[in-house]
Every structure is written in C-alpha cells, then in structure tokens.
C-alpha cells in the first residue's frame, strides 16, 4: 500500500516531455558558420539541465531556440507538443511560458528592483496593485526584501542577478533559461545564486536549463548535456548528491 502523502510520483517511470528539439539546425553568415547541426534534445517536465561545451559550440544558439527567441533553419522546436514555428505569437509564448536569466543581468537601469520585476507583467492582465504585490513577494523570495526600491546601480552583482531571477519568475513560467547566470559573479554570489535556482527548481518544480562552462556550477543540475561543434555530444544524469 503506497503512502498517500507521497502519491505515486516517486515511481513514475517516464516523465512527460516539456520541450524538445528535433534535428534543429541553425547557421549564420549565409551558412558559413554552422552553429547547430541537427540537435535532438528532450527536456522533461521538472528537469534541471546544465548545458556545457566549449566556446562557440552552439550553447547560446540552442538556448535561443528553446526559448522561442530565434527559429531554426530546419528541424522543429516543440513545447508541450506544440510546434513553436507554428505559434502565432512567439512573444506571448516567451512572456507566459519562459523565464530568461542573462549573464549580465540586463536589468533596466532607470527602474527600481520592484519595477524591473514588474516589466514582464506589463503584458499580463493583472491589475497594478497585484503586480506590485507580486513583485515584492518575489523579491522577498530571492532574499531582497530590503532592496525593493533600489536601482540596479545601487545593487551588487549577486543582488542584481537575484532581481533578474525574480523578474524571470514574474509570469510563473514553465521553463527557466539561464545563459551563464554566474558568469559575472564572484564565488560567494555564485553559490547564493545557484542555491536560489536549486531551491526554485525544488520548491516550484520549475524546469531549469542553464548554460555554463564551470563544472562546479554544472554539478548543481540533475543532468548534463554537452554540446560540441553544434551537436549533442553527451547527455548524462549527474551523480546524485552533488555538489
């Protein structure tokens, strides 16, 4: 008799697929630079994936495909069984389904932390007051309750990245994409940001894909995908318990 408190999730053999790339290619400069050469990758609901690979191997290009920022030359990107290239409005797909975290934070310098978190909500039907409350709530969750009215210039790198993470969560996305989220941070801030991302993944069941070249950062993930020269080179689960 299974314990009802655990449900039967623990034994579920095959999780459902959230996002998938099928034979995706993308080249630049009239085909002279082949950034992706037929990538097949399946991301499951609730997964936490680290994408690694050498510089220029196509990691960022792949992330852009998954996030609906760019479209493949050939092949398909699927999200919950829907083909991205057939969606009428990719910007509303991005707004509702995907959260983005960038290496250099990309906060708007003229806005306060709370206002930055509200930027993605501009497209949502929530009334003003609720957006504000949600922004403050999110900032509390990333440990910035004291920094709500600070401008990015008044925040440390780690704090800025936490504001950016709060912003990425604003519209309750299904998928969080982060490109070198700790690339501009010192060791201490890196640990803090990675623990925050891990917590978000664990508590919200959020699917997370992060690009990194740092093995200790990649170790936080449950699965590592290595890209080499525009192709998936290796796709293996991380040993449990790391880092």
């Amino acid at each position: 008799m299974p314990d009802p408190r655990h449900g039967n999730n623990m034994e579920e053999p095959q999780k459902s697929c959230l996002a998938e790339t099928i034979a995706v290619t993308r080249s630049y400069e009239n085909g002279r630079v082949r950034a992706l050469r037929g990538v097949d990758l399946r991301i499951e609901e609730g997964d936490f994936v680290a994408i690694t690979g050498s510089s220029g191997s196509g990691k960022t290009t792949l992330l852009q495909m998954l996030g609906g920022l760019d479209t493949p030359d050939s092949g398909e990107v699927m999200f919950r069984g829907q083909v991205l290239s057939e969606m009428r409005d990719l910007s509303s797909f991005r707004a509702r389904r995907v959260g983005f975290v960038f290496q250099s934070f990309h906060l708007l310098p003229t806005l306060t932390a709370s206002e930055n978190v509200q930027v993605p909500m501009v497209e949502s039907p929530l009334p003003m007051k609720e957006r504000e409350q949600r922004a403050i709530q999110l900032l509390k969750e990333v440990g910035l309750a004291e920094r709500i009215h600070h401008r990015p210039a008044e925040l440390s790198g780690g704090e800025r990245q936490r504001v950016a993470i709060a912003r990425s969560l604003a519209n309750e996305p299904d998928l969080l994409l982060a490109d070198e989220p700790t690339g501009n941070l010192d060791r201490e801030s890196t640990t803090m940001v990675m623990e925050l991302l891990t917590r978000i993944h664990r508590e919200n069941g959020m699917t997370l894909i992060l690009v990194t070249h740092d093995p200790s950062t990649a170790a936080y993930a449950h699965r590592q995908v290595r890209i080499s020269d525009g192709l998936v080179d290796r796709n293996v689960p991380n040993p449990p318990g790391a880092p």
Partner: protein
Amino acid sequence: MRLWTMVSRNLRVRRMRTALTLLGIAVGMMAIVTLMGLARGFENNWDQTLNARGTDVVVNRISTGSPIPAPFSEEVDREISALPDIEDSGGVLAVLMPVENLPMILVTSWEWESYIWNHLEIVEGRMQKDGHEKAVLLGKSASQILRKQVGDSLQLLGSEFSVCGIYESTSMIESGAIVIPLGVMQSHSDNAGKINFVNLRFSPGVDKARGREICDRIEQLHSGLSASLASEAAQRSSTAQGVKGMTLAVTLLSMVVGLASVMNTMLMSVFERTVEIGVLRAIGWKAARIRRMILLEATLLGISGGVLGVLLGFLVRELLYLFPAISGTIRVEIGVEAIVFTLLFSTVVGALSGLYPAIRASRMKPTVAFRHQ
C-alpha cells in the same frame, strides 16, 4: 509600474539631451503662440479703436505688405458721403514714423469737423483751435512715452509743433498716438488732397446685411478700394494678414525643426537602447508595445516642448512689455485657442517624429539579449 513610468524615466535620465530637444521644439512653439497673440492683440485693438470712434465702415486702398495703406484722393470721401444711408464720414491720413526719441509712433490726422473727433476725451489742455493750428493732441500713453506735457513743443514732420492737449481713449492704438487736423498733416507731409482711410457711420436702422450692400457699393466706386465693416476690418487689414502669413510660415518652419529634432533624439535613444529593447522583446514584450513606448516618448517630448513654448511665449510678452514704446502700443493677447492650438500642434509633431524611430525599435531582434553579455 506602468509603461508611462518607463517612458518618463527614459527622458529624465538623459537630462541634457531631453532639455536641448525640448528647447528645439519650444522655440518654434513660442514663436507661434506669440505671433498668434500679436495678431489677436492687434485685431482687438482695432476693434476697440473703431468702436470708440463709433465707426461702422473703414475704407482704404487694397494694399499688401505695408501696415499703412497707400493714400488716395479725398474726393473719394465726398463721393462716399453722398451715398444713401450714410450719416457721417471722415477722411483720415495716418502714418507710422519715427518721432524724436521714438523709432515708431502712429501719427494720425482726421478731417476737421468730422464725427471722429467727438469721442476724444480731453483730460488736459484743449483741442486744436481750428483745422489749421499747428498743434498736436497726444494720447495719454504717447505723452508718457514721449515725456511731453501740455505747452511743450514737439519735432514732427520736419517742423515744430506745440502740444495743446492730452486725451484719453479706450483704444490702445489711439492712446499711443499723436492726432493732428487732416489739413495740417496733408500740407506738412506733401500729401495735399490725399487721405488713406475713410471712416464712416451708418444712419440708424442699417443692419449688417444692408451694411454689406453699402460696402459693395463703395467698392464699386473705384477699383482698388476696399470697404470693410468695423467688425471685419481688423481681420482684413494688411497688418493682420501679414502677421497671419508670418504665423503660417513660422508654424511650418517649427514643424520641420521640431520633427527633425525629436526624430534625431528618438533615433539616437533607440539605437543606444538596442540591447534594452532586445531584452524587453526577449522577456515577452510585443513589438506593438515597444512601438507604443517609443511613440509615447516622442509624444511626451512634443507636449512638453509645447508647454515650455507657451510659457516662453508669456515670458517673451513680459519682456516686450518692459519697453514702454511697445507696451503702450502693442498687445500680445495669448488666447485659449492659441494655447490649445500650440499644444495640439506640438503633440502631433512629437507623435509624427516618433513613428519612424518606433518602427525601427520594434524591428530590433530579441536575440541581442543573449549576444551582448
């Protein structure tokens, strides 16, 4: 946080650039509002003047350009007064000229014994004894600007006149003018037998429609004559037409300057924000919202430039009024419709200048968000 918050912050962050752009629009808007105020002030002044005299119709030669129309024979006055339904008429010869320390003053002369003299209220001294006395009446503000009292002498038309009296008039034009008998003016200005206006009043009971008919009759007397009802004379006068032409020219010019300056600023600002706009697109903003943001910024620049321009217009007016020669004769009446027009105009100019930058901005790629790390 609203779109509005971002828009106004974007403009406030680049303070110097925003200020210079605003100035670029505001100068044009100031010119528009001031010129419109001048035209209106002039028209009201004229209305007041004709009202004070009890004049129903002004006749002059059609002239373009010069503020004072060209002279014609005083015979015309006699022909007009012979027409039916005309109670009284009087010839006028008026010139604008420098007098003593003043660069420009209105010197006007009226047919002696015509009704025009009746409305003057002498507050000091007396009227001229007869139509030949070489003496001047000064309007109250003219006497102040010229610093002349009754009994002083005045250099006028190349000879010496004495000041015999000072009058008050509800008309500002007249209050700032010098009045002499027509005959004296004609003989001292080489204009024997010439006048450049006829003022006339109707017999009682003439309505506006009949008034128009009389005007048409007068215009048929001689080609090149223009007869206007008092209520329309100001608008038809060459000065008013001249100011209106100038207003139009300045309006077009400020449109071009405003468009160029706002568009330049907005394009610069859009290209500077390539990454920022890309990030907004990446995190889900639609192209339409980016367009709206840029359009709103440009429109806000336009409105603010308009507001600043109107304020500058009032400032310029006060500066002009610091000169007694101007404050005694010229009114800048900035009416609600001039303000509304200027604000609407600058808003439209701002919005138009934002169109192209907005389109450029909305075409920016969201991929730059990941590329500019």
